């Protein structure tokens, strides 16, 4: 298609323009790093005079592993994404995707231990945006951006067969069950909430929740705390019957990919050329991404739907306001995730306890003593973190309200559809539906040159 190639060139140009602008802005606002402080303990016993023959052992301080491996990872990611795009769009081969899945699961999952992954990289990016002292490695940044760029051009090929978390779930799916549409839409909202929470916690410095509750990292490393292993096992168990539960209902990166994939230049299609309305693919998708043609509703009055849509659009600000209210009230509870706030609470509890009983000192209070800070200084930091959380939780609430409101509006807008189509946002390009389409079989036969009248389909 000529238009498509023109558009892709234009898009690349626009992206490069963005890079140039971002670089310029960033060079303009150079930031500085903050210093650390630690209270020095005394040296109680001076060093003795030791014989001259005595050779003091040298303590080795091995440096961090080189970054070459991370660059190799980035190259592998780029290669896998390109290969996945080729397999989904050009080759249309589920078998090829399956092999790629096995490879990425083995490489990114078991060999590299599932770290660093684009899902967790969201938090690195947020950290880099909000904390001046935080330096984001280029490889992590590329891990974050590359799948998004691919999603803009070819849809969610990253989910399809590059993400080790997705492939782990995809490969264990043996008995897919369809999830009712209302439940699918409802559960899908959790991912947006999770993304909001992850951004809030990373921005305030409370920690990286996505990594804390990553269900498969313990499984990839075959070690980890009991909670992590149990979480991973239960996700895998569910994934045997309900396709990719993490990707559909929780994955915060999937939210970004979904949004970008909706406007993508091209994406996986069920049929190689045209839909013949045979309905064979209707139940092919285990992830509920196939949209059926809309029934002819020419004779149904449209008034009721219009009124509902109008009401929902009017209700959107109200839902957002409710979200803000809810977020604001839960800000203290959310702030409990922040280590400094927790420490301040523990120290306060400790101080209150000191008057009544002389139990062992809380570790947090002891730690504060070691750093040489006074409780008042700690409380001042706590107060500023709490203020951050008040603003952050309100924004989170607004985000959740917006997501719910927009979802309701989207559900009440009916789009006319004549063919069976894969929903570009929902489709993870696993390639299962290809084989269900009779047109696909025709195409394959043509390629093999088995059709009479097909002129030399030997294009490998």
């Amino acid at each position, binding site marked *: 298609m000529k*238009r498509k190639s*023109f558009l892709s060139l234009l898009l690349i140009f626009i992206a490069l323009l963005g890079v140039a602008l971002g670089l310029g*802005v960033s060079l303009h606002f150079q930031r500085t790093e903050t210093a650390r402080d630690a209270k*020095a303990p005394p*040296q109680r*016993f001076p060093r003795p005079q030791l014989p001259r023959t005595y050779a003091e052992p040298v303590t080795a301080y091995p440096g961090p592993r080189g970054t070459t491996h991370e660059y190799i990872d980035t190259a592998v990611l780029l290669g896998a994404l390109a290969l996945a795009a080729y397999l989904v769009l050009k080759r249309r081969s589920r078998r090829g995707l399956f092999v790629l899945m096995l490879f990425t699961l083995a490489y990114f999952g078991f060999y590299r231990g599932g770290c660093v992954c684009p899902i967790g990289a969201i*938090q690195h990016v947020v950290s880099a945006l909000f904390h001046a002292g935080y330096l984001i490695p280029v490889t992590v940044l590329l891990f974050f951006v590359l799948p998004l760029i691919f999603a803009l051009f070819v849809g969610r090929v990253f989910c399809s067969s590059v993400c080790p978390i997705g492939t782990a779930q995809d490969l264990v799916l043996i008995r897919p069950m369809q999830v009712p549409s209302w439940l699918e839409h409802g559960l899908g909202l959790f991912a947006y909430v999770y993304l909001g929470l992850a951004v809030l916690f990373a921005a305030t410095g409370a920690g990286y929740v996505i990594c804390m509750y990553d269900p498969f990292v313990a499984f990839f490393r075959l070690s980890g705390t009991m909670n992590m292993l149990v979480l991973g096992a239960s996700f895998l168990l569910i994934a045997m019957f309900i396709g990719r539960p993490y990707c559909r209902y929780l994955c915060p990166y999937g939210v970004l990919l979904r949004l970008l994939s909706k*406007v993508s230049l091209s994406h996986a299609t069920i049929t190689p050329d045209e839909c013949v309305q045979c309905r064979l693919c209707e139940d092919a998708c285990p992830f509920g991404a196939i949209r059926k043609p809309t029934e002819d509703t020419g004779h149904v009055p449209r008034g009721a739907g219009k009124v509902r849509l109008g009401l929902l659009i009017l209700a959107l600000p109200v839902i957002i306001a409710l979200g803000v209210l809810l977020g604001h009230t839960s800000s203290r509870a959310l702030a409990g995730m922040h280590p400094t706030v927790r420490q301040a609470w523990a120290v306060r509890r400790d101080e209150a306890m000191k008057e009544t009983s002389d139990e062992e000192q809380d570790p*947090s209070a002891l730690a504060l003593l070691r750093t040489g800070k006074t409780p008042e200084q700690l409380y001042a930091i706590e107060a500023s973190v709490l203020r951050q959380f008040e603003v952050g939780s309100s924004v989170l609430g607004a985000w959740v309200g917006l997501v719910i409101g927009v979802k309701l509006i989207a559900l009440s807008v009916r789009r006319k559809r004549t063919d069976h189509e894969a929903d570009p946002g929902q489709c993870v390009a696993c390639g299962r539906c290809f084989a269900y389409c009779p047109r696909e079989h025709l195409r394959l036969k043509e390629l093999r040159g088995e059709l009479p009248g097909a002129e030399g389909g030997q294009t490998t």
Partner: protein
Amino acid sequence: MAEEKDKMTRRDFIKAGACGAACFALGAGLGSLGERGAKQDMVWQIDPGKCIQCGNCETHCVLKPSAVKCVHAFGVCGYCERCFGFFAAKPAEYTSGAENELCPAAALTRKHVKGQYHEYTVDEEKCIACGRCVKGCRVQGNSSLFLQVRHDRCLNCSQCSIAEACPSHAFVRVPASTPYIRPKIKPSDAQPRDKAS
């Protein structure tokens, strides 16, 4: 060029516009963050000033045994005969032997140097990062033993699971060019010991 094949509908136009905007935003983000990120990586490390030797380093690392190890700064060590990091509280004898030692993994070894002075070395292969010796040395000694993340072992997880469990928030991200935090010790006023202990 757009009109050659098939007409671009309004929906297509909006879609392409959104796609372009997203492309631009991604590019801008990459450019602005990439410039700063190009310089350095960040790694996890324990600030010995904050560490209270709670024992979580032994149990919470995703690696078994933990990537945290006890490190000995020989320059600070007093070469004490009765090392508080080596001997258990009130041992039967002040000699090497499992029943007298504090370390549960026998990772700390004692070697006689001269007179009453002894050298203590950590065997990293055996060390389990329980922090018992560090605590002993910290509370009653020179703090020459301290816990550090060993970067030849550490996987540098995005969210270190020990950092999550650390009650004193001693786990910090440091630039990869200075990956260790050595304890700052107030030098003693006393002269180097020769005989007196």
